[in-house]
Every structure is written in C-alpha cells, then in structure tokens.
C-alpha cells in the first residue's frame, strides 16, 4: 500500500508493484483480489520467471528471451504454484545482509503439523539442501565473519567462519 501510494502521488510514473513471499504463496488469489494495487503476485515456484514476467509487464524488449517460461505463464497476474519447490542455485545473489555476514539456507519446509503453525502448508515438505550446492554456498561465504544457517526448523544457527 505504501509502495502503491507512490504511484498515486503523481509524477506520471507507473511503478509495477510485485508481491512475493509467504503471503503471496498462501493467499495468492485472495491477496490479488484484495490488493488491486499489486500488479504481480508471485509464489515460490515462479520466482525463476520473475525477470521475464516483470519485463513483460514493463513492455521491455528482450522480455521473452530472458524468460525461460512460456509467455502465458509469465503474463498472468497471479503466479502461484506448488509449495514444495526444488532448491535453486543460491550462491550468486544480491546480498541484503551486512557485508560481514550472510544467511546460508540448509533446508526448507517442514513436515510437522503443529496446530498453531501454517508454514508446512505453503513452505512445503521438509527437504535438505543438496550437499554440493550447500558446499558451494558455504565456500563463497568463507570470506565472511559470520554465517547464519537457516531453515524452518533451525531458526538461526550462527557460525563464525575461520577460513583462510
């Protein structure tokens, strides 16, 4: 809503509002209905198609080339698929954390059925990250002073790295 207010503020510039994350995954359709300001509602399975979908929304040249998916799958406003999605390469990424630390995802999902928790419903079944992929990410993180391992059942496990 705050982001959409930038569009309403004028200036003639229409910014695309993309909603991702757990809320989009869990409430995709109702969220899109409740939030007309959102131009795209993208779930976990469609994250890889986000550049293509966004380029398509912005009418950019090369949109189809950047998207590995069909244009029909990137053109819909709500793109929410399965909750249990395979791991994607996570070594090369745009870091949001402070430079000395990074999160290292070691697993995803949860198989428990706790009554107070809805996470298994939209984060999918528990699966461990393959060792090789984990190792690549960990090696890239060796220059950091601190690595925090995260997954649904391990909230944050902080490791101080001492690689030379």
């Amino acid at each position, binding site marked *: 809503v705050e982001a959409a207010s930038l569009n309403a503020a004028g200036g003639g510039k229409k910014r695309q509002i993309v909603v991702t994350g757990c809320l989009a995954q869990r409430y995709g359709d109702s969220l899109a209905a409740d939030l007309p300001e959102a131009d795209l509602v993208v779930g976990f399975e469609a*994250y890889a198609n*986000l550049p293509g979908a966004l*380029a398509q929304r912005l009418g950019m040249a090369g949109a189809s080339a950047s998207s590995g998916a069909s244009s029909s799958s990137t053109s819909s406003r709500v793109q929410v698929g399965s909750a249990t999605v395979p791991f994607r390469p996570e070594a090369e990424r745009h870091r949001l954390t402070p430079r000395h630390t990074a999160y290292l995802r070691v697993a995803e999902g949860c198989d428990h059925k706790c009554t107070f928790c809805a996470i298994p*419903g939209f984060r999918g079944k528990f699966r461990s990250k393959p060792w090789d992929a984990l190792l690549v990410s960990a090696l890239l993180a060796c220059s950091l002073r601190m690595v925090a391992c995260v997954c649904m059942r391990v909230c944050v496990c902080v490791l101080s790295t001492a690689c030379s």
Partner: protein
Amino acid sequence: VTIFDGRSPRRRGAAAAAAPLAAAAADAPEAAGAAQPKKVSFVSLGCPKNVVDGEVMLGDLERSGLFEVTADHEAADAIVINTCAFVEVRQAEQGVSGVHARADAHACACRRVCVARTTPSDVVCDVAAVCRTPSLSRSRCAGLVGPRWLVSACAAPVPCAAVSWVLCCAPSCFFSGLTHCRVVPCLRAVRQLWRRRA
C-alpha cells in the same frame, strides 16, 4: 536496498555488496538489445528464509541484464515486496497496536507480526514478542493473548553467542512448554541484538 521495518524505511549499505553483480549488470544491456535496464527496488519484510529468497530473486533480476537494483523507490520502475505479512495493514485491521501497547506496558516489545504463522482457522495473526526482561510472568504473557491471538515467542535478551536460540521462550514464560515457539524467526530482534553487541 531499502528494508521496511513495518513503520519506517531503513537504508542499508548494500551497494558495496552488490558491486560484483552490478558490474555484470552493466555489461548486460548490450545483450538485451541495448535497452536501458529498468530499476527495481526491493522491500524485505520477511524472515531469514525470505531474505535468502529475496537475495536470489534480486540476483536473477540483475543477471537477466534487464534490471538494476536501486534503493530509491521513487526512481524505481518496479517495487518488489517480499513479505510474510503486511505489517501495518494487519496492525490496523486486527488491532495489533493494542497488543503492542500492552506488551510495552509489560516491558515487552512485540517485534514482529506475521500472518503467515497462524492456525488455519480465523486466528489471523501471530505475535512474536521479544521480552526485554527475563522476568516475564505467566500472567503477563497470558495478558498478551486475546481470543484471536497467539503469542508464540518470548525471549529474554541473550548474548550474541546464544543468538541462535534467541527465540526460545524465557523460562518464566507461559509458553515455554511450547518448544516450537522457538522456530518463529525474529530477524529484527536478532539484528538489534547484534547491533547492541557491536
């Protein structure tokens, strides 16, 4: 990259961290038909898992050559909001502010509201309270719980070394028996603890 903490935007020094990818993105417009890359800003409201998702997502956008990441929402052509909850909206809708007030009154600080961690019924929000005092009594904890609320995590301030279990319930917490309380991540609280330690 701007990260909203639910109330006000915070600027973070991600420009340096983005340097390698930014260099790659600078070469990419040629491959994309010499078009100027569009600017994308990012709002991260979620837990560490969501942060990882967001980082990978931004990496994808930059590597496509069609986009560059900016911290300026006004200059952005697209704003990606990666969230598990619309905190302020939900606060307004569900009266979380009242819970916050009560929590503050009891020397607690409700740090995070997450509609994602709810029961499947009409319990719509989940308040993770990080207690400022280790002496949070059961009655005070229970006071945070309304008919539609579930206070799931109360943690005493802990040193950095123990920050991995920062969300374990305090021993005196009414919910200390709920071992799964600790899986509620509270990224902001962790960051604040780190900053305090630094």
